[in-house]
């Protein structure tokens, strides 16, 4: 589904990704954990080219998106949903318009069909009554669930989550994680950068531990949380668990 080969990313003189190679299969839920500044978010953002990798290859569905001549990045992004830490809902549109915009403009879906899809998704994330609300009228948790619905409206093949609960008040984290759990159970391929170890343990098929721009360890959650092999994984987990 997704494969990266020897991904490197430099920001000026800063070497953020130092050769990340990973394979993610259809239907897998991958959680990426690691300390701040370890390159987790940069890695995730490379997967839909919000950051352009300095070198290395990315394949999505067998297509090499790092080959710029042959890939229309907009088409690829339409298949890769992304949820941000700061939600990034469009504040000048109500919830329904937020969700319908891309399906109508990018997928050229008729408005009525897009709305039908939007309502179904709002029901799924438990916000059917908020269709006409504006983002600033919603709590953080509600905004993030709308953001998930907005990404799903494009019917992506993969969903990327960039610390989706880090900006939320504690009591709202669960409602967002529950939506994500459902998604995982339904077979959505997901890559989740997160500090929610409980979520990783419960939902992830595989956990990647990143530090200093590299994947230092990858294993099933039960293995990585109970008997981490790498010293730095041990240190990291001992600090947060």
């Amino acid at each position: 589904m997704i494969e990266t080969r020897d991904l490197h990313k430099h920001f000026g003189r800063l070497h953020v990704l130092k050769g990340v190679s990973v394979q993610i299969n259809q239907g897998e839920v991958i959680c990426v954990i690691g300390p701040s500044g370890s390159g987790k978010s940069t890695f995730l953002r490379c997967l839909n080219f919000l950051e352009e990798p300095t070198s290395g290859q990315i394949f999505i569905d067998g297509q090499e998106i790092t080959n710029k001549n042959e890939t229309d990045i907009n088409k690829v992004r339409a298949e890769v949903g992304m949820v941000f830490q700061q939600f990034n809902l469009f504040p000048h549109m109500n919830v329904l318009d937020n969700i319908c915009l891309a399906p109508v403009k990018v997928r050229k879906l008729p408005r009525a069909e897009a709305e039908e899809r939007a309502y179904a998704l709002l029901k799924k994330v438990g916000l059917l009554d908020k269709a006409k609300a504006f983002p600033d009228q919603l709590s953080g948790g509600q905004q993030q669930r709308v953001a998930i619905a907005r990404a799903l409206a494009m019917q992506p093949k993969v969903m990327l989550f960039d610390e989706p609960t880090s900006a939320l008040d504690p009591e709202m984290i669960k409602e967002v994680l529950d939506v994500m759990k459902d998604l995982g159970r339904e077979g959505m391929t997901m890559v989740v950068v997160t500090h929610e170890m409980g979520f990783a343990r419960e939902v992830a098929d595989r956990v990647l531990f990143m530090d200093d721009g590299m994947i230092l360890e990858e294993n099933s959650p039960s293995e990585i949380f109970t008997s981490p092999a790498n010293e730095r994984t041990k240190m990291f987990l001992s600090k947060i668990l």
Partner: protein
Amino acid sequence: MGYVWSWQVIVQSFPMLLAGAGLTIRLTCIAVSMGILIGTFFGIGRVAKNALIFSLSSIYVNFIRGTPLLVQLYLVYFGIPALIGIPIPPLLAAYITMSVNSGAYVAEIVRAGIQSISRGQMEAARSLGMTYGQAMLHVILPQTFKRIIPPLGNEFIALLKDSSIVSVIALEELVRKGYLISGRTFRSFEIWTAVAFMFLFMTLPITQLVNYTERKLKKGD
């Protein structure tokens, strides 16, 4: 000081002054409308990644903002006709100069407005598969325009006052009218006081409107 204030001269010259103010408003409205069109275009150019578009936009903005409006007017009214051999009527010269001038200032307002929208908005739009143009059109610019209403109001006021410069090419807007009337009646004090207050009557409502929208937008953010 044996000066006796004469209301009569103001009353008598009022219709002429009003006609002058009419031209002032017309000039300003057209220049600002064109300025918004031009300025949006070049404001987007000023945030473009394409080096050529960025450079051209920057040259335009810097040239206009770095030279006096009076010189720009002379360049259009005297300079260009000398070059192409076709005279440009004063009114057209005024429209062109003021629109192009306003465009540069609006471009900077638009650029600042676009850059004030959080980066996440563009990223969210692009991550949904929208092109740069679609993201600009549907996500960034609508938010930008809401945010730049106050500075655009200020630009309108500035241009309304600066439009008096076209009096030098004999266009009879408010200042030129004042000049003509005071030359004929020798009642400079009354006439220029009247002209000043007429400008004030035009700018004050806009100032109020700008303050009002500023307060409203603060609540909205």
